[in-house]
């Protein structure tokens, strides 16, 4: 059964201090060629039946993302495991 994946990212104009902190730590790893790091959130949704992308968008718009500061995208990914084997 395909799984619905929702990716939530801060809008480009919203400062991402978490991403900046990570970017600032990279030189300590010897990495000096990274211009910026942005951190978002990936949410995986398994429906009991057929995946419902419209419903997933509604969930994302109402709860998973705050449209004031965040954008989201919704897409399907194939999963090999049977639904009951998922943690």
């Amino acid at each position: 059964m395909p799984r619905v994946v929702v990716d939530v990212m801060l809008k480009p104009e919203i400062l991402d201090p978490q991403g900046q902190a990570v970017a600032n730590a990279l030189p300590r790893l010897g990495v000096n060629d990274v211009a910026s790091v942005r951190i978002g959130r990936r949410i995986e949704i398994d429906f009991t039946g057929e995946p419902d992308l419209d419903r997933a968008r509604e969930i994302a718009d109402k709860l998973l993302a705050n449209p004031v500061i965040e954008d989201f995208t919704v897409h399907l990914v194939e999963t090999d495991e049977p639904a009951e084997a998922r943690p």
Partner: protein
Amino acid sequence: MTARVGVVTFPGSLDDGDAARAVRIAGAEPVRLWHGEAELHGVDAVVLPGGFSYGDYLRCGAIARFAPVMEKIIDAAGGGLPVLGICNGFQILCEAHLLPGALTRNQHLHFRNRDQILRIEATGTAWTNTFQPGQEVLIPVKNGEGCYVADPATLDQLEAEGRVVARYVGGNPNGSQRDIAAITNQAGNVVGIMPHPEHAVEALTGPSLDGLGFFTSVLKHLVGAPA
């Protein structure tokens, strides 16, 4: 008759006790409201206290917005019920779309805990009508996610409509845009504030008694409000 001011307890609220005490010191009767109960018990105003709610998973206030008591509060706020959201309560009001914008991680990523000077700019709201315009007050601030953000058009609108209730003076503790510490809705009955007026109501525990003005304001508002 004594005004009855509801104080909501969410799972993770920290300042509900102090908020209820501030209500009592101001001369009203605090009524404890429970997040899981869609019931306002006929209160005349509501305080959403600081702390946390539902672990603040996802985003601060995002899940609390859907609490059964919040449905009632959102309805009642639309009808003019005075609502004050402090800290996490401010975050919940933004998530509930009762106030515009959002509160994000402090720009410097550090938790800030200090006594903070604020300038009260909007004195026509239900919660600030006992202050003088431009009055400076000293109130504790304590937050990790208090950075107020909104798009420039929203910020301009807030300024043009006189809905910036308070600004940080003497240093912005969290990077909030335009030093915004508190805002109100168009009607002036809903106010969100990041610092904690309920911690500045007694000489023994607070840096000043300036916070009391928010609670006496709502009583004055209720006396003047049509029944």
